[in-house]
């Protein structure tokens, strides 16, 4: 399209001459997908809150934040993987395997920290397996993690003897306390006002991890290199970034996040089932993409991962409260995924509406 290129060339020249300054903070915010997802989150919350005042009760907010926290935690790991241009389909299965390993050690009456460590080790081993084959052998992340998704689920079923594990021995109360802890504690006659929800340990774990990941993305060389790999892997390698080791690390980190989420859920429910986390990988990827991570690599934020996970859960909760048949959830969630990425295209500078109009009603030449 010659007219377009001429226009672009003219535009570049003008900005060169006038020396337009770098985009301001406000412009950056307005152009970011997480910002618009946050707006959507607030809008949906407000709408459902007006329709069903019980949405804004401390109790419901406590529940919602606990429900999406495991997805938020896993979305943090998934964001790191997706920034490098990869994908991790095995997180749901790793959750199941981790829960069963920890559950088996608890059933055998080991102390809780031994059981949790062994569960964590099992999860990290799965991540290391993924990372090794993706980074050092150079296989496609989709294929390797698809394989691990099958392997970890199968291991969970086999090691559990296809039984639910719930007789957790002497440390059962500690395990439960970890999964069910709340802050503020909300006991009678305390100084916390009633409207503050008692946030779960899941939620606080997610907040702390998100802060750490956000900090690393912004202020550490590790984060910088992650984005460089997603932008141009070859360039990162040529400038001395250890691309293979970095890629290995992100798959281990993704598995770590899945293990943390798994152990929290294990503590909350007080039982371990081998089906834990089934199809969760898709919800985690959905949350990550809604939060603005690009499957082509090179972009994504910690905040986006959390807010994407939150939006999915709020929509689910809103539909339940509105009394809509739960089978409709999939349709809504699917639409949100497509809509969020559509808006993301729009905010990244492409005029999607013009393109859409052109595709549907092409302008006639001559």
């Amino acid at each position, binding site marked *: 399209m010659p007219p377009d290129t001429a226009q672009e060339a003219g535009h*570049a020249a003008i900005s*060169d001459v006038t*020396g337009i300054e*770098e985009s301001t903070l406000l412009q950056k915010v307005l152009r970011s997908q997480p910002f618009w997802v946050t707006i959507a989150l607030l809008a949906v919350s407000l709408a459902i809150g007006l329709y069903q005042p019980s949405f804004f009760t401390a109790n419901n907010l406590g529940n919602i934040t606990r429900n999406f926290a495991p997805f938020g935690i896993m979305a943090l790991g998934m964001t790191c993987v997706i920034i490098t241009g990869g994908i991790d389909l095995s997180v749901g299965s790793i959750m199941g395997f981790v829960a069963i390993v920890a559950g088996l050690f608890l059933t055998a009456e080991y102390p809780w920290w031994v059981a949790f460590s062994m569960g964590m080790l099992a999860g990290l081993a799965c991540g290391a397996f993924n990372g090794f084959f993706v980074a050092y052998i150079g296989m496609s992340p989709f294929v390797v993690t698809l394989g691990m998704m099958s392997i970890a689920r199968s291991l969970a079923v086999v090691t559990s003897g296809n039984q639910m594990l719930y007789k957790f021995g002497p440390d059962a109360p500690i395990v439960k306390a970890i999964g069910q802890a709340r802050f503020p504690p909300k006991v009678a006659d305390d100084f916390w006002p009633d409207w503050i929800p008692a946030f779960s340990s899941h939620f606080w774990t997610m907040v702390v991890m998100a802060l750490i990941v956000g900090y690393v993305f912004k*202020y*550490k*060389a590790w984060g*910088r*290199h992650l*984005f*460089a790999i*997603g*932008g*141009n892997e*070859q*360039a*990162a*390698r*040529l*400038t*001395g*970034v250890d691309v293979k080791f970095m890629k290995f690390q992100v798959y281990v980190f993704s598995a770590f996040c899945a293990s943390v989420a798994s152990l929290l859920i294990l503590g909350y429910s007080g039982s371990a089932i081998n089906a834990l986390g089934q199809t969760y990988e898709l919800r985690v990827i959905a949350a990550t993409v809604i939060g603005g991570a690009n499957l082509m690599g*090179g*972009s994504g934020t910690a905040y986006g991962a959390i807010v994407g996970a939150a939006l999915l859960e709020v929509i689910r909760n809103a539909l339940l409260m509105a009394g809509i048949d739960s089978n409709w959830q999939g349709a809504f969630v699917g639409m949100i995924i497509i809509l969020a990425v559509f808006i993301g295209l729009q905010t990244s500078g492409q005029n999607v509406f013009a393109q859409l109009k052109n595709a549907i009603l092409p302008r006639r030449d001559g």
Partner: protein
Amino acid sequence: MSLLELTGITKSFGAIHALQGVDLEINPGEAVGLMGDNGAGKSTLVKIIAGNYPQTAGVMKVEGKTVHFTRPVDSRRAGIEVVYQDLALADNLTAAENVFLGREVQKGWGPLRTLDKQEMIDRSADLFEELKSETRPRDLVQKMSGGQRQAVAIARTRLSDPKLVLMDEPTAAISVRQVAEVLNLIKRLKETNHAVLLISHRMPDVFEVCDRITVLRRGTKVADKMTVETSPEEITGLITGAIHAA
């Protein structure tokens, strides 16, 4: 003592011999033009010197010491900087982030070290000014013109004080004024006793800045002549094979 000395460099990819027994010597303060048709082995030679892959046979010496490069970082540590043909830039990062990619300036101590963004932005701005480029350190590379991208890639080589700068087609896709800037930079590098290996298709550029011209044809060196002793016509003949060797 020469800065870089290649003896009998051979590179085979399976049955294909990309380079066969190439000798090359570069001295401090010297600019050498490496010419040849597509497929003559120029890029292969550059990639070996830059540490992208090792040679099949032959010896490479930097300042008289035999070196074995297995990674690009090895070559950089030996004092060799490269401007790649595709510039090797990450589009999703800013100019300053690209300049310092892989050797970020950090502040703080131990595991709490963080990126010193302001320092990197300031130093990139100085480098761009030195290169007389209007590149702004905070701009995304994605939105830059060919010349600005070039400036980012060249600014990278100025971070350290390299002994040898390899430039793979640095003037291929930029404007006339920017070509003059790049050629000026090469002259300044020579004056400060740096060596330059310039790979280019543009005969006038090579004749303007290079002291010596080496011609590769089908993986072998067919000529190595002082610029003053040859002519564009002769070099063209050597590249195409019309003149067998000189």
